[in-house]
């Protein structure tokens, strides 16, 4: 743009036009990002809110007709949908709890560095870098009742007596939970590790001088200090559980029957497969959004309380 010769002018400390060009510059730098975000977020958000009050179907060749609250009423009265919500809730509860325990435990193990601990930490992180749908798919092979490795490692040497995790309605949700825990415990571990590393050493030194037991140190120093990060992990994972889609699609597709039909999977089915009930599924999407915002707010309030005390 400019002639590089201008660089030589050392004696110009103040540009009268710099303020103006700075203003132009940040506008130029920020504008594309904001324009893109607004175009791709605001419009869809309001449009789907509008659609949720209509009977629109994306494959019918007729314009949306306003039906008021009918979609919301029919969803809230649909017993089957509540079953899917309950399944999603159970899935979130089981997987998030297990992820917290395993992730935190792993972080405690890897907290003090030893030879090769860096490599081990990285290796444990591999699952969370993978594509959930690929993960779902190859776990299908691992769960296979006759030649999968999972039952074999659990000690079922006779395939005919081994459980078929993905075909048994009682086990299928657990099968999905196990994979989710495998994939996301590393994420919790990572958060906990950063929390553990941030605990000031003098707290422990003071505790040692006071002859506090390791147990006491754990409950009174370690856990409270990591709690905010644990809560962030719970928040992230719970939100993700309510949106869970790709892992389940790869692993079970919602089956057997509707044993693993999570709410996001059902939403996809209503919106795109066979039914194409665009208006109604927009309403369902909004209900899910409200639930996620509600849950997040409870967590964030609690988190702020924790931070205020800490």
């Amino acid at each position, binding site marked *: 743009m400019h002639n590089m010769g201008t660089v030589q002018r050392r004696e110009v400390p103040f540009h009268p036009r710099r303020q103006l060009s700075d203003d132009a510059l940040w506008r130029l730098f920020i504008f594309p990002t904001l324009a893109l975000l607004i175009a791709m*977020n605001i419009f*869809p958000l309001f449009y789907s809110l509008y659609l949720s009050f209509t009977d629109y179907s994306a494959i019918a060749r007729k314009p949306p007709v306003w039906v008021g609250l009918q979609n919301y009423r029919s969803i809230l009265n649909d017993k089957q949908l509540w079953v899917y919500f309950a399944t999603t809730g159970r899935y979130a509860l089981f997987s998030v709890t297990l992820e917290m325990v395993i992730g935190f435990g792993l972080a405690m193990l890897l907290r003090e560095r030893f030879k090769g601990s860096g490599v081990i930490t990285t290796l444990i992180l*591999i699952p969370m870098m993978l594509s959930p749908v690929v993960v779902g798919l*190859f776990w299908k092979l691992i769960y296979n009742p006759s030649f999968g490795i999972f039952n074999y490692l659990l000690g079922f040497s006779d395939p005919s007596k081994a459980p078929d995790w993905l075909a048994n309605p009682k086990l299928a949700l657990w099968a999905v939970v196990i994979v989710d825990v495998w994939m996301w415990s590393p994420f919790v571990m990572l958060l906990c590790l950063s929390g553990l590393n941030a605990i000031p050493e003098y707290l422990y030194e003071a505790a040692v001088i006071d002859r506090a037991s390791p147990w006491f140190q754990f409950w009174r120093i370690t856990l409270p200090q990591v709690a905010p990060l644990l809560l962030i992990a719970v928040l992230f994972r719970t939100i993700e559980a309510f949106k869970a889609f790709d892992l389940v699609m790869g692993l079970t597709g919602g089956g057997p029957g509707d044993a693993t039909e999570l709410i996001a999977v059902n939403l996809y089915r209503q919106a795109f497969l066979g039914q194409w009930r665009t208006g109604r599924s927009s309403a369902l999407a909004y209900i899910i959004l409200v639930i996620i915002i509600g849950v997040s707010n409870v967590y964030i309030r609690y988190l702020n309380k924790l931070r205020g005390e800490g």
Partner: protein
Amino acid sequence: MGKGGTGRPASIVYAVRVDKIGRRAQLIRVIRAFLAVVIALIFLIPVFWMGTTAFKSRADVVSVPPKIFFKPTLEGFVNLLTERSVLTQALLEAARQRTDLKWYERIALNQGQEIMGLSEYVHRLRNSLIVATGSTVAAVTLGLLAGYAFSRFNVPGKADLLFFILSTRMLPAVVVTIPIFLMYRALGLHDTHLGLILLYTVFNLSLSVWLLKGFIDEIPREYEEAALVDGYTRFQAFRKVVLPQALTGIATTTVFCLIFAWNEYAFALMLTTEKARTAPPSIPAVLGRGGIEWAAIAAGSLGFLIPVMIVTFALRRYLLRGVTFGAIRQ
């Protein structure tokens, strides 16, 4: 520790006690390390299993009990990457007479088939590559510019703008997919590379802006000010001083954007059909087709996973930092 052996009984007792505690601490450390290694191995079993399955022959994949040791073959990869047709007995005999067969053609021939050409997987991997690269470049470039502006200038309403940018990521994809689907259909962006690139760019932007702003915040302003005094323009100072300093941050952000775009499934499933379909939504589709070729599926998953694994491992230091960093800031 027990350094001074003065011979006084009290200090000997003390030294022995310290030694005992030291040995116990040592033992705990060893147990800890051992447990960590065992758990890491458990975490790696599925990855290992997929990696080995990709190299198994049909018989070895379905052997009971599962085989850990086997004779590796590239059958799975050949089946994955090529389209084949079944040969009649006469044609098969004729093909067997030929001497100029390549090794992969021989594998197909052993199954009574002939290679017709490259399979859809190749096409979809190419789509994945285009979409992931395009959206990552766009997200990191835009994020860098916006991050720099937010870090260095008095943008009015900065806090609100930053929160708005972050909030776009909080929205569940399920809420926006339907209107985006309709919008894309109306604009002709359905089933195009550009459509997916735009969408992934938008999705990654919040993270990209926040991460890069954080990294640029840490670069001292004095560097640029010195450059400005030397007569550089703002833009030159940005390009020649800030950019090289921000390389670590750019690398971290790139990895995160790339991993997301490479792995994304839901949008790709709903917004593409044939032309621009990426690999993730087509992988489960393979399962539906008649007999399950596990070796080919494992090979496909492995091929899809290896780039991410390499990137992850190469940039692990930055990655660990970036993850915790983003999480704490949010």
